[in-house]
């Protein structure tokens, strides 16, 4: 019996005009936008490759250890085509130095051709699904029950010995299989376009991630179908059902995600917390500075000039002498000390000073590393409380709408969510440890090459290269799971409610 019902419903849905239009629009939007997005990705990838090249070049130009700070670039995520998330927004180049613990707040943006292009919002495939799929699901569902009741066919069907639950199930299965057609075809086309691009090579993991997106999309679609069905079950007339469905759609897809943060936004970066953390960090560095000055005072060499009067042979060499400075930025709680010395060729007169300088830097290097680590502990907690917590609360608020859950789930699948992006900065911090280990390995802090290239430039080739691997699919799945689960639960709850209402309703 149920197969007959499904067949009837399927034919009813497939042959309709709305189905044809839905498929057409979906395909048009997805194909046009995928093409644009792939081009954009290729541009970003090219920028990333140039960045890699210049970074390596810049490092080779550094002749002394103390100037050995390097930039590392974040590769663009090929799956950002599906859901761009924070991939394009957060900085994609970060500076690695032994004296400074990098965070996402210190990253720079590199390779954006025209910053004004941000004026135009960018669309990804998931956004198209968010808007169009939910709309189509509601259009399919609004008259599922109310329409049959109005036309009287419902009564006709119920005169047969069919269970009411079966009718609901048949409607759901047939409508969903219809709705899956535009979804799957458009995703297929998108994947085909992706594979034709030479810049993008998808791994097995990426295909699994795309599978995750499909799964989330189906669950999302089904939530909206159930919402439509619920409306259809509670209203007597299709006109009312349609109106209600459209307003629910407008509210949840259009209004809620944009209005909720404006209406109940969590408080901005709390100023007192910021100030106190900054004070604390400042104290760490001031203590460091006192020790530094004390060392210089006790040193055999008189005076405070940490350069010990060393000069370059070539007086025009601007960066020849060292410069020591504090980098301070209270808005991101940044406070760090840099001692860079880049003497190309020592003058004869400076040679006797070399052992003093070596002593000083042997003392200073580990001190800086130490202070930076201690400051980082404070900074980490403060940044977490001031910037990350409100962002997390925001995302929880956004989950008040199925759109928010779907968005969060797909972002987690492709790895463009906050956690995915923070993985990169975590890797950058690990790389900083590698750099420091390398320094210790080479005994760099006390070496002459720390401040002068008199005995030859530093050979950076033995420093391991930075590489960033995105987390594996299992982790992505773990991150996406909560949202997918909530969506699934929402499905079940809605179905139970519809079932209860439908059972009790008069035909």
């Amino acid at each position, binding site marked *: 019996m149920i197969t007959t019902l499904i067949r009837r419903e399927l034919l009813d849905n497939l042959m309709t005009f709305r189905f044809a239009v839905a498929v057409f629009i979906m395909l048009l939007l997805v194909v046009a936008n995928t093409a644009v997005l792939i081009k*954009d990705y290729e541009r970003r990838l090219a920028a990333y490759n140039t960045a890699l090249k210049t970074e390596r070049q810049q490092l080779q130009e550094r002749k002394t250890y103390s100037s050995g700070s390097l930039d590392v670039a974040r590769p663009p995520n090929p799956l950002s085509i599906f859901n761009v998330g924070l991939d394009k927004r957060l900085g994609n180049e970060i500076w690695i130095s032994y004296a400074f613990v990098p965070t*996402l707040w210190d990253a720079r943006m590199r390779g954006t051709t*025209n910053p*004004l292009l941000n004026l135009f919002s960018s669309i990804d495939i998931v956004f198209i699904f968010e*808007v169009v799929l939910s709309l189509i699901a509601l259009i399919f569902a609004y008259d599922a029950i109310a329409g049959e009741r109005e036309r009287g066919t419902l009564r006709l069907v119920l005169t047969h010995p069919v269970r009411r639950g079966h009718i609901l199930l048949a409607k759901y299965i047939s409508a969903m299989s219809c709705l899956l057609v535009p979804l799957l075809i458009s995703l297929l086309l998108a994947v085909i376009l992706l594979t034709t691009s030479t810049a993008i090579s998808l791994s097995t993991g990426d295909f699994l991630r795309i599978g995750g997106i499909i799964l989330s999309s189906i669950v999302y679609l089904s939530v909206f179908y159930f919402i439509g069905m619920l409306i259809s079950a509670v209203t007597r007339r299709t006109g*009312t059902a349609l109106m209600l469905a459209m307003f629910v759609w407008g509210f949840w897809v259009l209004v809620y995600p944009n209005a909720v943060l*404006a*209406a109940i936004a969590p408080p901005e970066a709390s100023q007192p917390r910021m100030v106190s953390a900054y004070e604390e960090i400042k104290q760490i560095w001031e203590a460091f500075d006192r020790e530094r000055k004390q060392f210089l005072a006790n040193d055999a060499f008189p005076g405070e000039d940490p350069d010990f009067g060393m000069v370059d042979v070539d007086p025009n060499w601007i960066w020849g002498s060292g410069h020591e400075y504090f980098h301070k930025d209270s808005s991101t709680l940044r406070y760090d000390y840099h001692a860079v010395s880049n003497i190309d060729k020592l003058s004869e007169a400076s040679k006797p000073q070399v052992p003093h300088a070596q002593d000083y830097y042997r003392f200073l290097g580990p001190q800086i590393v130490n202070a930076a680590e201690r400051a980082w502990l404070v900074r980490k907690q403060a940044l977490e409380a001031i*910037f990350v917590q409100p962002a997390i609360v925001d995302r929880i608020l956004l989950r008040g709408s199925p759109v928010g859950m779907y968005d969060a789930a797909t972002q987690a699948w492709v790895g463009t969510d906050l956690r995915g992006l923070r993985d990169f900065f975590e890797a950058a911090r690990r790389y900083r440890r590698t750099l420091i280990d390398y320094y210790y390995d080479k005994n760099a802090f006390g070496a002459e090459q720390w401040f002068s290239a008199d005995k030859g430039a530093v050979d950076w080739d033995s420093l391991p290269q930075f590489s960033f691997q995105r987390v594996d699919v299992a982790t992505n799945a773990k991150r996406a799971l909560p949202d997918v689960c909530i969506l699934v639960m929402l499905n079940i709850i809605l179905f139970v409610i519809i079932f209860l209402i439908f059972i009790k309703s008069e035909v």
Partner: protein
Amino acid sequence: MWHIAKREIYDNLNSLRFALTTVLLLGLMLINAIVHLQEHPGRMQKYHDAATKSLNRLKSRTNLYQIAQEGPGYLYKKPSSLHFCADGGEDFLADNVHGGFYAWATDDLAGFWQLDYMPATLNRQNIRPDTIKIDWTFVIGYVLSLIAILFTFDSISGEREHGTLRLTLANSVPRHTVLIGKFLGALVSISVPFVLSILMNLLVISTASEVRLGPDAWSRLGIILFIALLYLCLFLALGLLVSSRVRQSAASLVILLLMWVTFVVFMPSTLASIASGFSPSMTYDKFNERAIQLVNELRGEYEARLQDMKDPVQKMEFAGEYVIKDVTGRERLIHEYLTQQHAQIQLARSVTRVSPVVLVQHLLEVFAGTGFERHQQFVENVQRYAREYREFVTDMDRADPESLHIIGTYEGMSKKPISPESIPMFEDRLSLGRDFNAAAVDLLLLMLFFAVFLSGAFLAFVRVEV
């Protein structure tokens, strides 16, 4: 006709959609007003603080060389008091132009100031999800158009389905009267909650003492209201057109909604992305490379030729010439870079005009004094001021007979003290006249869209079989 309109209005007033519309519009406008009240005083305060600081620094200079070399410093864009009407993506546009120096310095020479258009410091600290701002542009562009569709999709096809259309036409009413009546009915029944919500919004905003709206602002608001109603009419006409062409009201809604989604939600960004690919602007790396090349070339030339010169005055003249050449060269390059970026945006903006929501967005931005047009106006103001400032330096130098009139070097310029009052000060301004020019094309296109849709609806309805 009034009879039909009245019937429509009564029908609508009692309907579910009218109630939902009212609630939705009132809620959105209330959020808009509250957010504006929270944010605007801070924004104004920030501008005033920054602008005063910059002015004070300028006034503290008394030496002509210092004025000529260091430049006016940061020049700030004045925030609009109508920011709540259109956000205009102000976060992505720089709020200042830096007229300062930091290029290079030798023992006796220093690079002169130049206008430096830094991109907006994109809030990379901001890891909060980005959303569309709830401004009037959103309420009008997205919500109002959707509501217009929901009010008209069944106005003809629905009546035809019910058979009431035949009944109406059985009376001796001309068809166009029926159409106009329906149009007016829908217009009035949407305008009522819309205007109400706008009044409430303005009431909330104007009660706060921190936010003051002048007569100029009120006239701008009037124009914005007119544009909003025109845009509403456009979508009503579209709704009537589709409704009279399509037999079933459900099909009519599907078509309208998908059209709406395509035109309003997707078209603006998709077309902008495609169009911005047509005229790529100079990349930052390329710009940087050219800038370094330019500076090095001039420097090399200067140093090479300076060796042969003996006469101190000749040397000084040559140095002054070098400084001026350096600053004009750099400024020309920066200007080229900026012009290319603006041209790219301009092209993308023109192409996206196919979508009515973009038209209304442009218009609202222009009249609210935010967004890209306004940014360009600000940049022009800055450039005009920069010319004034440079002329001032030349004039002051020329007025001093003791000066050697070699601009670019300390020794060659007037040493007379300058009174701080005489230095030209920058103040950013908005002018309504210019705005009308910027808006004319968009306004015409909007009217054209409306005319096309309305006459389309008319033709479709006249030929329709009942």
